[in-house]
């Protein structure tokens, strides 16, 4: 019996060892904080517009505000970062996908509510959707903003001074500064029917803003420049689709291309204001997404006076002939607001180039690092961009980079932008901040109900872009 007891004890010992050793937790250590070099994120402020706010799908809302590029950077460096959160589905009416085949986008008419309005300090994310350069210096609320009624000024500023004043009052140690986009986007998205900020005024305002930041804060600053329109699906989606739609008629000799208004003109247009199939495909003439959202793309080639009815204009008074096929005849052209013609494209490009020269010059004069977002989007439009193995393109919806509004990035798009900033911070400040794995950021095209027509033109709700601050 002695022998048996011995072997039982032996077995018990073996078991005990086995149980004990299974609780091996040797590598249970929290990953260490990244090296920040000489960047100091103890007070991190993001200064800018909708792109800084994390706006996407035509709205600002909590579930994707957490993927604003500033918040993603803050997470990577472990910085405290408070945002003006708005409950889903956000403000001012989120775009949602109603159906995928055919692709159809609708506006969610429910509005979200601002959440942490009683936060005792200015927000770290001071991005105000729709803000122009001059607004950063002057606007204290919606009524004093240039638009006069943009509620985001009230939500972000809460009556405590301008965005610039609030940023300075935080005594930031680190800032991102991405401004000026709206100073050209309004012109471009409305087909050149409203003015853009003149380039000399832009230089003056940007200088003023930058000067205040440089002299009144000790922040290390990274600035970003302004992407051109050729990479943005708001401008590049409809034209090629229309080209495909009219090509049979053109090939049959029944049409020459789409006629359009320009220079504020309404009604019949000159016969040389025409975009050929080739021009539409190449993007020599750009048609905006609003042409689809207002329901006009479906009417191309049909006798219609819808635009005139929608706007209360008597077509006869402006020399239009609504018995002619819409878009395909100079007497019933595509209205000016939906078209960037070659001259307007040139104007946009020149303006963006001038703005970007201003930005680069001022950044360099202040010793600030510059993220060349413009070059990034240009390259991506040409070749796509591979992030963590996945290829992103500037295609509307399928490209993964742009949200349903065709202008603002998706959450994954914002993650790529955060990484552009992180690359620049690492380079400029000798930091070693890990980049965000873009593919682990959730998709952000919101499903409601989806219709590309057979030519690949998305069908959008007519109110989709009605209240659309950039």
């Amino acid at each position, binding site marked *: 019996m002695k022998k048996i007891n011995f072997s039982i004890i032996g077995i018990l010992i073996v078991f005990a060892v086995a149980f004990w050793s299974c609780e091996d937790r040797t590598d249970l250590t929290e990953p260490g904080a990244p090296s920040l070099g000489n960047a100091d994120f103890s007070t991190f402020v993001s200064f800018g517009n909708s792109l800084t706010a994390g706006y996407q799908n035509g709205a600002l809302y909590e579930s994707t505000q957490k993927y604003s590029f500033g918040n993603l950077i803050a997470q990577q460096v472990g910085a405290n970062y408070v945002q003006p959160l708005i409950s889903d589905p956000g403000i001012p009416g989120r775009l949602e996908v109603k159906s995928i085949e055919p692709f159809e986008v609708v506006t969610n008419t429910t509005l979200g509510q601002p959440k942490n309005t009683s936060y005792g300090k200015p927000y770290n994310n001071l991005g105000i959707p729709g803000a122009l350069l001059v607004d950063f210096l002057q606007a204290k609320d919606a009524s004093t903003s240039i638009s006069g009624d943009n509620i985001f000024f009230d939500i972000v500023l809460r009556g405590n001074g301008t965005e610039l004043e609030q940023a300075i009052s935080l005594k930031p140690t680190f800032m991102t500064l991405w401004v000026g986009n709206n100073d050209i986007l309004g012109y471009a998205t409305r087909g050149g029917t409203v003015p853009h900020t003149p380039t000399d005024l832009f230089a003056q305002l940007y200088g003023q803003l930058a000067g205040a930041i440089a002299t009144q804060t000790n922040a290390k600053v990274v600035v970003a420049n302004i992407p051109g329109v050729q990479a943005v699906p708001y401008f590049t989606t409809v034209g090629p689709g229309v080209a495909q739609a009219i090509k049979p008629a053109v090939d049959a000799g029944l049409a020459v291309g789409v006629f359009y208004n320009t220079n504020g003109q309404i009604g019949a247009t000159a016969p040389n204001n025409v975009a050929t199939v080739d021009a539409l495909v190449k993007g020599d003439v750009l048609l905006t997404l609003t042409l689809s959202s207002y329901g006009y793309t479906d009417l191309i080639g049909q006798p219609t006076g819808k635009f005139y009815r929608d706007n209360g204009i008597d077509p006869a008074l402006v020399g239009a002939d609504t018995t002619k096929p819409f878009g395909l005849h100079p007497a019933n052209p595509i209205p000016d607001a939906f078209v960037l013609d070659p001259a307007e494209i040139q104007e946009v490009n020149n303006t963006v180039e001038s703005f970007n020269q201003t930005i680069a010059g001022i950044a360099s004069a202040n010793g600030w690092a510059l993220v060349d977002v413009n070059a990034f989007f240009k390259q991506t439009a040409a070749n796509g961009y591979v992030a963590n*193995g996945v290829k992103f393109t500037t295609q509307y919806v399928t490209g993964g980079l742009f949200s349903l509004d065709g202008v603002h990035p998706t959450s994954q798009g914002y993650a790529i932008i955060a990484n552009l900033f992180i690359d620049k911070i690492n380079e400029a400040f000798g930091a070693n901040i890990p980049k965000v794995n873009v593919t682990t950021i959730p998709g952000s095209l919101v499903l409601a109900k989806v219709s590309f027509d057979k030519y690949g033109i998305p069908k959008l709700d007519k109110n989709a872009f009605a209240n659309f601050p950039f």
Partner: protein
Amino acid sequence: MLKKINVTILGILFATTQLFASGFQINEHSARAMALGGAFTGLANDPSAVYFNPAGITQLSGTHLMAGVTLIVPKSTFRGPSPAITEWELEKQIFNPINFYVTHQMSEKFHLGFSVNNPYGLGTKWPSDWVGKYMAVETEIRTFYFNAVAAYEVSKQFSLGFGFTYALGDVLISRMQNLSPFNADAEISLEGNGSGAGFNFGLLFKPSENFSIGAAYKSRVNFKFEGDATVTAPKQFNGLIPTGKIEAPLTAPDVLSFGIGVKPSDNLTLSADLQFTMWSTYDKLEITFKDFVDSKTGKPMVTSSVRDYEDSFIGRFGAEYVVSSMMTLRAGFLYDKNPVKDERVDPTLPDADRLGFNAGLGIKLADNLSLDLAYMFLRFSERKIDNSLESYSGIEDSVAPMNGVYNSVAHLFAVNLSVNF
């Protein structure tokens, strides 16, 4: 324009699924064999020999019946994905493979036997919102093998046995599908059942009363599973994600084992086995969606995934000590080398090399009735993956390696009743 979207969704369906892997293989088919660490090929001297080594049933005179069940209680955690150290735990599940044996001596040298076993019958279930939800949520396989054998005693020293196997199986695979760039997930479940056939044979060489050598081979079983794919997704995806009838051939691998039994004294028996499982033959899993046409090929959609296993072995050792005519004590040990390469480990099956510690006892309840009990503690070596090729993002081509640390243990309890007459 949106044609591309459904292609993306299809491309990664069940990119990695490991069903007939060692993690789902059950080698515990009787309490006595389990207590001996499974080292039984060279002994094969009870009715479970029908499974372990059919040649062994020539040692059983008259008619024997044996039936039992094994309770398997696994526990697995994953910490990661690196650099995160969040710990995720498998939901508790208990598996209960059964076994049933009958043997009958037909004549002096000729014996027949029959068995029912569940050689694959495990599963894993992770929380449906866990970090690896695009890789695995619930995976389960159940099989019933019906095995009829005949054995012939060629001489006093040498026996051989041969049998046919008919196998039934059903599988369930369910996981989430990332619908990025849309802000939504789909839940995809594949359920199917199928059958297959195989054979087995065994040899037993017993040059003396105190020494025996055995070898056994179980052939592969080719299952053809048929079933349904069901998808729960936002209604915008109706028709964009493959559903309906599916077909998937799956093969349970060949198993070859060699064993010895030694009797150093009247009371003590020692045994050792070496088991080889030929995992490497099966390097991919193909699922055909019979109702869903692949827009690229115009044929039913086929998804295929690489499994890329290596062959593996299990070393087994057992000792049996007869305390009295009423009671026998047993102990055992095993080492199981897992077949999955580090870079292909995924949470469908958090596999690792294992050490098993076994103990058990046999009690004679009556002259022709005995009870066997066994316990095994199975310790998986901690497995730290830092070169994973498996992505947890659920997006095609994505590099988001499922690196981290897997820890698993399992407790097994077995009970068998045997009667002979």
